[in-house]
């Protein structure tokens, strides 16, 4: 018999999380006896909360929110890491006089407070040696963030590259991007997670969900154009918007660029480097967490039990790297 499962994304359906839909379209769930309902999310933090509260069985959210939720004592646990960089960073207009992170001093910076990169802006600023005192941070809604940059209402925005860059491209606005990772502030993106009690009680189901998603991610890597077609079949509104397909292609490519990491290439898709996770936990505890938070032990939060089963060979990785090169350029 099939199990009914609810899965939430961190945000609207985008190329960067398209494998959730592609897994449905290619039958990766049904083959495993799963009937999965994929829901759009309303922010990483909220998605992590929603899964902890049992409104969903599974979620795909960034590592930061997973650690933050755990630090607040919410029951949450990761099963695999799909993408290895949130592509957090500072987006600029191409003609911007800001060349380096230091140049941000004294400027106006737009940000969406509920988005995942916002809490780590101070971490980036500190490590990049920026004096934050003279910077004005303007809170903005997702719906107007990029517009504000293009219209010069702000000098720069903090952004998730895989979301914001496609939007700017669609408006033919050339951009530059300063990733947080350039200052060593780096977070895993897209961790598949659930509640500990689900993992304990239905281990095989958790494994099946993880595998199905990774299988779809692999297909996405190997056949990006077909993957987009499958995605649009599941989410027709992507097709109806004028730049929808292009947006999805960009978002997918940008997120896939982060998969060209030793974790996936050497150990197989879904693999987590526990040392990096430990560093991310430190970052969260230092910058993102409230005073009453308790540091969650990395081992209690994530494991490689289900990861690494799907591997691509070197020539496949080679082709993929060539295909993805333009996206890497966009991320600065």
């Amino acid at each position, binding site marked *: 018999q099939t199990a009914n499962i609810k899965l*939430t994304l961190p945000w*609207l359906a*985008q190329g960067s999380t398209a494998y959730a839909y592609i897994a449905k379209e290619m039958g990766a769930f049904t083959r495993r006896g799963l009937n999965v309902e994929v*829901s*759009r999310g*309303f922010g990483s933090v*909220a998605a992590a*909360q*929603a899964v902890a*509260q049992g*409104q969903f069985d599974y979620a795909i959210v960034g590592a930061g929110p997973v650690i933050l939720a755990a630090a607040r004592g919410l029951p949450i646990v990761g099963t695999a890491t799909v993408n290895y960089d949130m592509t957090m960073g500072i987006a600029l207009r191409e003609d911007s006089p800001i060349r380096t992170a230091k140049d941000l001093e004294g400027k106006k910076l737009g940000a969406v407070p509920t988005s995942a990169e916002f809490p780590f802006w101070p971490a980036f600023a500190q490590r990049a040696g920026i004096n934050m005192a003279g910077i004005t941070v303007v809170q903005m809604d*997702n*719906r*107007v963030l*990029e*517009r504000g940059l293009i219209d010069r209402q702000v000098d720069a925005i903090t952004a998730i590259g895989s*979301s914001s860059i496609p*939007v700017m491209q*669609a*408006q033919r606005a050339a951009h530059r991007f300063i990733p947080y990772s350039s200052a060593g502030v780096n977070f895993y993106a897209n961790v598949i997670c659930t509640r500990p009690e689900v993992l304990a009680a239905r281990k095989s189901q958790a494994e099946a969900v993880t595998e199905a998603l990774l299988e779809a991610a692999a297909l996405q890597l190997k056949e990006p154009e077909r993957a987009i077609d499958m995605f649009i079949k599941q989410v*027709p*509104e992507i097709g*109806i*918007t*004028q*730049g*929808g397909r292009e*947006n999805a292609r960009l978002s997918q490519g940008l997120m896939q660029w982060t998969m060209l990491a030793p974790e996936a290439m050497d150990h197989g898709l879904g693999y987590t480097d526990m040392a990096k996770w430990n560093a991310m936990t430190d970052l969260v505890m230092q910058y993102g967490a409230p005073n009453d938070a308790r540091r969650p032990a990395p081992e209690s939060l994530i494991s490689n039990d289900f990861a690494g089963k799907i591997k691509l060979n070197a020539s496949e990785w080679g082709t993929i790297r060539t295909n993805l090169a333009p996206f890497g350029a966009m991320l600065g």
Partner: protein
Amino acid sequence: MSDMALPATPNQPRLSLAGHWVSQILLPVAFAAVVLGLWEGLVRWYQVPEVILPPPSVIGARIVSAWPFLLQHSLPTAIEATVGFLIAAAFGIVLSVVLVYSRWAYVALYPNVVFFQLIPKIALAPLFIVWLGIGSSSRLAFSVFIAFFPVVISTLTGLNSTPPDMLRLCKALTAKSWQVFLSVRFPYALPHIFSGLKVAVTFAIIGVIVGEFITAQAGLGYLVLFASSQAETPLILAAIAMLCVVGLVLYGIVAGAERLILKRYGH
């Protein structure tokens, strides 16, 4: 200013003077057309980019090209708004009846109802999601929450506007409470109830849309948000136009029901 005119009836100034339905329908439509024309002209003249403000013709074309899609997304919005409205109406009317028949409840609750009527309830929308999750139940609950208060307040006004002599007559005839309610108080309250319901239906739609902005996977609010995420302003405006249509249709249904029922109840 033209010369002071003397309206025939105080509340419908000079419409009667303005003559036939032709001018009453044609003129406002013509005015709207002129505004749209100006919009089209100015946007084209100043070459305003489409992301900022597309001309009406582009929005129109987008409505046509996305029509089945818009229709499909109108459905959940319309259904949720309708259900939210109906629940708010039922709850609101029932609470009013309780308040009218129980003096203590009235004194204890009414000021609190007024208080809620005054506060900016929209700020609570995100919490509904936290409490009730992202399903339609939280959108419904929020929509009920904001549509509820106008129903209570106007139903109470209505139930309290029965002529006192009529109530005296009923009392003298030793009528039962429920008889008085069904045959006298409630029918007398209908005009007030409907004016509350008309406010409630527009509020219910606002509630659903705000909810859809936050959580939905379908519906016109979702579509607006989705189109925003793609910076597709023509689709945003097409969805908003559709939203206006849904709003007017639902309002029209309530106003039509009002007409029918008030005709029956002879006010």
